[in-house]
């Protein structure tokens, strides 16, 4: 057949350069932010800005240079975190951030690989990958921003939505039990498990920094406001009101038994560093038990 192509609009590099020159460098954290990517797409009152900021502060605290760090995200509001960070960032398919990051972390063990994704992405469509990466103890720093719903698609029920909570797909209230994420992570083999809310920004920075400094599969749950998708239908209110709710209802309990940190609608939220159980990573075991067999032969031959 004959093909009649419509003319394509060429890439205007100058226009992007003008945006970057006009905006980038004004904010003290711009070294950590990709040039020309701000403003972000998140709603007013969303907790993702706090989550992004605490990650940047944790990088500063640990001194890990941006060129030694990589971030992998799945799909959804939290999936957009990767795109704002000025390092190697990968925005993958829905639920598949962890297996993608597994390939990256195993081939580049010199890099600090963080998986930043949401509760729906990591625990519904990606649930299987989460438990297996935790079991294998892949050296990944998983930060799960839990806003109890699917925000990007407009507030549907998630595997973290508390019973009776209203979402657009549970208009009469949710009848399903929710995952207790720290318990799931701990049971699956995560070497570090913590939970904070976006109200606990400073504790969160310390927790993220701690995980960046240890090897293995770590898990931090970040409870975050979603005033549009979760706050409004459940009469929690605006982003600020949700932060006040966190302030008044959070109980810091480091070392709490992960089995007992379920979250009910408008209930108390137990936060803290729940467990740290070091063990060799997948790659350490693979190198020690498998690759070294052949390295030794080479050395002997030499």
């Amino acid at each position, binding site marked *: 057949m004959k093909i009649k*192509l*419509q003319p*394509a*609009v*060429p*890439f205007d*590099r100058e226009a*992007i350069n003008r945006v970057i020159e006009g905006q980038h460098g004004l904010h003290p954290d711009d070294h950590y932010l*990709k040039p*020309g*990517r701000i403003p972000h797409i998140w709603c007013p009152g969303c907790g993702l800005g706090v989550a992004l900021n605490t990650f940047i502060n944790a990088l500063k605290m640990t001194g890990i240079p*941006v*060129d*030694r760090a*990589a971030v*992998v995200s799945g799909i959804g509001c939290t999936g957009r975190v*990767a*795109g704002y960070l*000025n*390092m*190697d*960032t*990968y*925005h*993958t*398919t829905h639920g*598949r951030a*962890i*297996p*993608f*990051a*597994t*390939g*990256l*972390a*195993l*081939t*580049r063990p*010199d*890099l600090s690989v963080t998986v930043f994704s949401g509760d729906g992405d990591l625990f519904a469509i990606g649930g*299987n*990958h989460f438990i*297996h990466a935790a079991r294998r103890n892949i050296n990944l720093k998983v930060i799960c921003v839990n806003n109890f719903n699917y925000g990007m698609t407009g507030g549907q029920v998630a595997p973290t939505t508390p019973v009776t909570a209203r979402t657009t797909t549970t208009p009469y209230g949710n009848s399903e039990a929710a995952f207790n994420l720290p318990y799931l992570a701990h049971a699956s083999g995560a070497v570090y498990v913590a939970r904070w809310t976006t109200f606990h920004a400073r504790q969160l920075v310390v927790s993220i920094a701690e995980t960046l400094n240890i090897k293995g599969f770590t898990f931090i749950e970040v409870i975050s406001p979603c005033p549009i998708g979760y706050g409004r239908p459940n009469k929690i209110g605006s982003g600020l009101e949700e932060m006040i709710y966190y302030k008044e209802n959070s109980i810091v309990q480091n070392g709490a038994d992960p089995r007992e940190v379920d979250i009910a609608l408008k209930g108390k939220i137990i936060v803290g560093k729940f467990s740290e159980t070091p063990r060799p990573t*997948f790659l350490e075991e*693979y190198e020690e038990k*498998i*690759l070294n*067999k*052949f*390295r030794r032969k*080479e050395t002997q*031959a030499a």
Partner: protein
Amino acid sequence: MSESGIISGEFFINGDEACAEGAIAAGCRFFAGYPITPATEIAERMARRLPQVQGICIQMEDEIASMAAILGASWGGVKSMTATSGPGFSLMMENIGLGMMTETPCVVVNIMRAGPSTGLPTLVGQGDVMQARWGSHGVYESIALCPSSPQEMFDLTVEAFNLSETYRLPVFVMGDELVGHMTEKVVIPPPEKIPRVSRRRPAEPPEQHLPFMGGEDWVPPMACAGEGYRLHVTGLTHDEMGYPQTVAQVHERTVRRLVDKIRRNRRRIIRTEAFCTEGAEVLVVAYGCTARTAREAVEILRLQGKKVGLLRLITLWPFPEEAVREAASGIKAFIVPEINYGQMAYEVERCAHGQTETVLLPLMGGAIHTPEMIIAAVKDVLP
């Protein structure tokens, strides 16, 4: 990584094992897979052999994860592969699309069995060849190679890596159960005789680099993780910077280049094999295990004085349009035996474009054509 585990010489191995050796010879140092008949022997061989060359082999929780992991490994700068069969190939489609959109070099081997669904797990099929073209949603062009022997399982796996590194996309090796499980002599040349291509790297410093700007061949050079380029790699429609853009004009430009880099380079990619085509009045067009039967039929018919030839498709995608179109003039018919109910036959008929008749010889799977089936079809046209 060490090269000491590299082997060369003559081996009596099956197609799956030859495929694994081809991958290692091509420089593959990361394999992620999930057991599935009839491709399991590839994973088993990789699990044994990759550590010998200081590579990593990991059995993932499913084929979705396997495909995702090899994309991540490729961005880690390591040549990577997975191998599966129909059901796993279906699961991989999602991240194959991510690989197409993010232009990630890697190799996906599909040892085809008969479907749909679980079908005939241990028996041959060729029903996935269109899936290799259209299986993931959206618009893209793919490269799929189709081996007809264990030796070609080796050779074409090497070539698949080289094509994937040259054009930056997941490349398919569409083997089938028969070729995968067939044991024959396989010659593995010494490493210096094996052509190996590695992805082009950016020549310019990070601040000047446009990670998704195609060059003269429409393929952008590739910076990998940890090299200071601070890339954003996304499955969203993105501009030349790699930044997401929900804009029709950007989609038109970006995805058009994904199509162009294959369509416009197709003459460098496409390979066919002509057997007894000179003066042929009927051409059998076949691929994979079916081409072996077709060759036997052509040999028998030629001894009987029938002017028959075989056009074997080594490259399934991009489809060898020019070769089929040129062959169509002056012949009485194309005969297309395939173990499905008509997939490549539609492409052949499209390229024949009314110049000649196309005869499909379908089999549903589980069994291969006999030479007699093809001979009978030819004799219908050339009594």
